[in-house]
């Protein structure tokens, strides 16, 4: 096993409680801002000390409250990429990388030169961090981590400081540089798309605790909790009441929903992803496996490549349903439409 974390820490305003295991894979910690993701990384790195628990990195116990083990960050061999990259502003790119290496001068120079070449930093070698673009700063931070030979790599919101148009390319670049890394990579993000693209496994964090850990496909298909559903981008969530084995009532929308099968004994909420709602432009024959509804279009919002349609399902409904449709579909507010949703797309959720 590569990483084992089971820690607790009390703060004045919230409680951190993290249980996490990871092999040599990329794990994304996904959660809203302020849910304790960064603190978790800092605990693993040894910057913040948990109150209780145990942290093991590659069979090396770096923290154990019972045995009073608390190794300093220097001995944990954790490669930590900070949100603002935390480069040394008083050193050039070359020195930022070289200062990490403890080797004879000649070997050091060779290693720095190699790393600088691998990360395409040749032109910036004599510049200071404040003279670099966001992408270059990130590559220097990565170079520093690579030469420090870490056992695990932790990336705290690695792309949040970059311009939107740069993110996609930096994301691909960063991951290609990390490809050869044998060990756990922990990525903190609040962007579900980014987390989905990069990671193998996901952990959903909500209010200081890790709720669910699983493969990303699993979590997106069946998020299980309201927090996980909303962080994975489920736009429609309603309070639910169980009517029968395969029937529940969505109280906020004022509709009855049929399920393919009820997979949890208890259902507190029901969710529908916006892209799973199909607005039927023309009359279509009835097909098995769908829920059919009549709805009123309340509002239509134009986005560059899609339309967001807000639907009222019942006259006394508390909340509208949000649907994402193709630009080709002509639709306007006030219109009455027929919609259908696949039964197996309905998400049953617990509180």
């Amino acid at each position, binding site marked *: 096993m590569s990483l084992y974390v089971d820690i607790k820490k009390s703060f004045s305003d919230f409680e951190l409680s993290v249980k996490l295991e990871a092999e040599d894979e990329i794990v994304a910690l996904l959660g809203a801002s302020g849910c304790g993701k960064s603190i978790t990384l*800092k605990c693993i*790195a*040894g*910057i913040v000390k948990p109150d209780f628990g145990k942290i093991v990195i590659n069979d090396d116990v770096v923290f154990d409250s019972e045995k009073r083990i608390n190794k*300093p*960050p*220097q001995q*944990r*061999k*954790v*490669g*930590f990429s*900070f*949100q*603002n990259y*935390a*480069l*040394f*502003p*008083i050193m050039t790119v070359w020195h930022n990388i070289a*200062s*990490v290496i*403890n080797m004879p001068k000649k070997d050091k120079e060779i290693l720095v030169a190699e790393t600088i070449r691998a990360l395409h930093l040749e032109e910036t070698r004599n510049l*200071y961090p*404040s*003279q*670099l*673009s966001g992408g270059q700063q990130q590559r220097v*931070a990565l170079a*520093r*981590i690579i030469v*420090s030979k870490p056992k695990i790599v932790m990336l705290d919101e690695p792309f949040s400081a970059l311009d939107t148009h740069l993110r996609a390319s930096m994301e691909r670049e960063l991951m290609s540089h990390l490809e050869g890394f044998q060990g756990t990579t922990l990525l903190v993000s609040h962007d579900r798309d980014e987390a989905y693209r990069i990671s193998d496994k996901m952990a959903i964090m909500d209010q200081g605790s890790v709720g669910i850990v699983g493969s990303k496909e699993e979590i997106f298909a069946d998020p299980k909790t309201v927090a996980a559903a909303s962080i994975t981008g489920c736009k429609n969530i309603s309070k639910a009441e169980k009517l029968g084995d395969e029937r529940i009532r969505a109280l906020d929308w004022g509709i009855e929903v049929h399920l393919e099968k009820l997979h949890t004994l208890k259902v507190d909420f029901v969710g529908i992803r916006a892209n799973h709602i199909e607005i039927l432009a023309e009359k279509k024959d009835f097909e098995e496996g769908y829920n059919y509804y009549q709805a009123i279009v309340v509002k239509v919002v134009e986005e560059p490549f899609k339309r967001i349609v807000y639907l009222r399902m019942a006259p006394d409904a508390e909340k509208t349903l949000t649907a994402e449709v193709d630009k080709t579909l002509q639709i306007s507010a006030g219109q009455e439409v027929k919609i259908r949703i696949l039964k197996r797309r309905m998400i049953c959720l617990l509180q």
Partner: protein
Amino acid sequence: MDFSPFFVSIRVAILATFITFFLGVFSANFVYKLKRGKGMIDSIFTLPMILPPTVVGFFLLLIFGRNGLIGGLLHQIGVQIVFTWYGAVVASTVVAFPLMYRTTRGAFEQVDQNIIHAAETLGFSRSKIFWRIKVPMAKSGILAGTVLAFARALGEFGATIMLAGNIPGRTQTMAIAVFSAASANNRELAFTWVVILSLISFGTIVMMNRLSDSNKNNKKRRKDFG
């Protein structure tokens, strides 16, 4: 005219600044890293700046006098602090120390915590972090503190006259010479020392502003480039 007060002053101020520099930087780092009792220790370290210099001088007399804690020990090895120019150095050091300490601590606190943490995770030892990261990053603050401490040491009067006295040619600094000349009704001599002291003080402040300006310009140039 006897120029000895000038040389006594410069010698005392330079030595006092030298000692204060190291004491100040290390105390600043010590208090900066403290988790508990920060406020209390900070108050004690700042006290010499707030107390009337004569009060500081009185305390120093108690400590460094022949029956004092340190004075007694030093007396046994034949070193006398009271009424010697060492006394002037001690007094100036103590009075200048809070300026050095506070300015440096402020500069340390300005350093981005993440940079320190990054250095830790990259395996930098504590002393490497201190010498290669913290001190260079706080450089302008440390320089400003040094200049302020020098100016304060140069102008020190109250504590010095209590501890070192007013012995022409030995412990009489420029600041004390102004007082001596004025009380002896030698207005001309007093005026000469006043002008010299004012010029040196003014020069120090100009130098400090230059230092902080050039630092800002450096930063600005780097920003513009990016």
